[in-house]
């Protein structure tokens, strides 16, 4: 396993290089300029020129890229242009809410999707199945922001059970923290649950039609045991794949949910940075999100081996 991890990590180097070049080119090709964005209202050419020179923005692009890469190789992601703090500190402040939100959303989605997915497949075409597939369809169709606003209206404004926006760290105040994350986590969790329900239902259906299931039933195993011990484990591979990909998206890409609920997460950070043309911050955060994606995919690959030993030996 150690060798596998090492090999995979080495293989990520060209990917990361490509990401750095891609994100650097994209953000610098976007029209707009960080100094203009920062000082929209006060125009003083000499100040702007000085700032540009200070930040090295007056130099040719290839030199700027080389400088950035040089620092990157020493582990320095640079400083944000807007708040002049190291990129890593900016991300450090924002990563915790994002990770907590992602974790909570995952947990909610699994709690909802696992029973619905399994029962849908086991009682195919029953009322229960129709409910399950409708739930999945609904969850996939509904845009995040709409679910968010409906939840806010119901639980925040009308019932006043949960806070509408803002963030309290659950590691400092557990109860208030969980309450502050509840609505955004449900918003993300429902959408994710819909995807997992569909995936789990179809892979369960496939597994249930296999010969070994017929054999298991012929042995006289109870239906519950058949599903738990034989069908479910074999149906998990596609679910794990989906989960792995979604985890990456949740950490860096829960932009709309973070925006609506005013959660200080990584998604909002990167969007605000793009609007401000905060080049070092955008580059740094995208690179870190890419690393997160790569790691979550690596984890998925390792899980495959655990779920299906045949993959390990291949």
């Amino acid at each position, binding site marked *: 396993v150690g060798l596998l991890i090492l090999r995979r990590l080495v293989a990520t180097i060209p990917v990361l290089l490509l990401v750095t070049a891609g994100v650097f080119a994209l953000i610098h090709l*976007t029209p707009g300029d960080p100094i203009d964005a920062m000082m929209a209202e006060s125009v003083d050419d000499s100040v702007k020129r000085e700032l540009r020179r200070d930040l090295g923005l007056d130099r040719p692009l290839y030199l700027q890229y080389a400088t950035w890469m040089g620092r990157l190789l020493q582990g320095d992601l640079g400083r944000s242009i807007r708040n002049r703090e190291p990129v890593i500190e900016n991300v450090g402040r924002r990563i915790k809410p994002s990770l907590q939100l992602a974790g909570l959303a995952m947990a909610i989605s699994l709690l909802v999707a696992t029973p619905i997915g399994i029962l849908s497949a086991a009682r195919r075409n029953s009322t229960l199945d129709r409910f399950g597939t409708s739930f999945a369809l609904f969850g996939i169709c509904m845009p995040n922001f709409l679910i968010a606003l409906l939840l806010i209206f119901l639980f925040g404004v009308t019932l006043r059970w949960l806070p509408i926006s803002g*963030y309290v760290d659950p590691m400092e105040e557990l109860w208030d923290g969980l309450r502050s994350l509840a609505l955004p986590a449900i918003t993300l969790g429902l959408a994710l649950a819909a995807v997992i329900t569909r995936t789990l239902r179809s892979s369960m259906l496939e597994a249930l039609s296999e010969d070994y299931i017929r054999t298991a039933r012929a042995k006289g195993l109870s239906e519950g045991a058949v599903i738990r011990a034989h069908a479910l484990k074999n149906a998990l591979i596609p679910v794990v794949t989906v989960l792995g990909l979604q985890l990456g998206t949740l950490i860096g890409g829960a932009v709309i949910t973070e925006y609506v609920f*005013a959660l200080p997460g990584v998604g909002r950070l990167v969007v605000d940075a793009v*609007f401000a043309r905060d080049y070092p911050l955008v580059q740094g955060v995208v690179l870190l999100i890419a690393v997160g994606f790569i790691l979550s995919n690596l984890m998925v690959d390792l899980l495959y081996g655990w779920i299906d030993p045949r993959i390990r030996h291949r």
Partner: protein
Amino acid sequence: MAATQPDATHSESRRDFLRLAALASALAPGVAGRAWAQETPKKGGTLRVGFYIEAATMDPHLSGSKIDRQVYHNIYEPLVVLDANLGIKPGLAESWQQPDPKTLVFKLRRGVKFHDGTDFNAEAVKWNFNRMKTEPKSVRKGETASIDTVDVVDAYTVRLNLKRPDAALLATLTDRAGMMVSPKTAQERGAELERNAKGAGTGPFVFVEWVKDDRLIIRRNDAYWNKQGGPYLEQIRYRPIPDDTVKLQSLQAGEIHVMDYVQPRDVAAVKADKNVVVLDVPSLADFAYQLNHTKPPFDNKALRQAVAYSLDLEQIVKGVWLNVGVPANGPIPPTSWAYDRSIPFIKRDLAKVKAKLAEGGKAGGFAFTMTTNNIPINVQEAEVIQAQLAEAGITMKIKLVDSGTLISDGNGKNFEMISYQWSGRPDPDGNTYQFYKTTAGTSLNWSGISNPQIDALLDKSREVSSQAERKKLFSQLVRILQDELPMIFIVHPIEPKAFSPRVQGYDPIPDGMMRFKDVWLK
């Protein structure tokens, strides 16, 4: 102020009159204060304020973001302050004199201490102006450009020697350029002042902490020099809530007590909600479109006029802005003493459009592109304008961009017609000079207008110190602008703010800044 009093004898439509009356009533000093001041103010409590974005820096001399000022006006104080009619009142300076047009002498208030315990005095003022003028990262250099040197006359008298007469300088000093930072704290803390303003101000509240993206907390300054009225609140807690709908819901649910701005689309609903108090605060803003004079089609004056005569501003203000604003006759808002109500806004006149198109050599109409921000209200406005122009035989394409692109397109004159939404300045100079004065290189004069008559008027308006005299000059200017059209003026928006009914004693000032000194919670 004449500009804010409705004049019933004037030949304006009833609706105009009502709108101005509404503006005037919202502007009348202390309306809100009076209505709320029947009870005795109570000390204590935490006021929770929702903002649309996060503050950028706590150093007023390095700040380029509007939102920062909302916080500054509670922890820092300028030399002079604005009243509800945009008049200039004593702030940290008790009085001032102008012995000649190039000299400004301030008598400073005695017994004022910075939050770090050091004295506020003439040396501190001198140090602050030098910092604004020389600190490499200072963005106050433009605003303090007319100040040549600063002399300490005695411990509490300071003299500004100007390079040229600058009638707008006092008004400029009511905001960040007049805000005094403790020299001791600034020198000791260095760049860290941007994140931590503890001890730096003299204001009614002291900085406590700022957890980025989460909360900014300030606390009552019990040693505040002004013993009249507040500060009453124990604490103010600012929080960024970027989504307007969610911010509004947070207010309705009681999670926040104040929100800085209500979108026009929400105003009617909010006014119907008994749990929310809405105050229409007329702004200094001027929302317009700059026309590029340096290239076709708008290097042609007749075609610029054809566009102006095609637009029905009343329809735009009613349909897009839902009457949360008034049609603009020029860059100076109705809140200003320089606003000339006798100049009507340009009315739609399709016969004139036809004549102007023919005069401009485009009798069959022409096509151009408008660049505007990709935000809902701008898109709606663009679509209405597009439809109105189409009726006049002019084809307009809409290019939607984010604000970063908009600014670089504007600075680079890479546009034909471009949206420009200016938050406004208390002195009319701030809404005019930098937009219409002939300038080389980049400036806010995106249109590239260069007109000797306008240049002369603008310069003169800085030299003349009599307000009545200046008002005449600005009226002349507005008439020329309506003819030359560096911009198509659309609307002077109102900036409604919403409060929980518990919030008492808030007095709105048209610069939109929320000063919480006399505010208390019921």
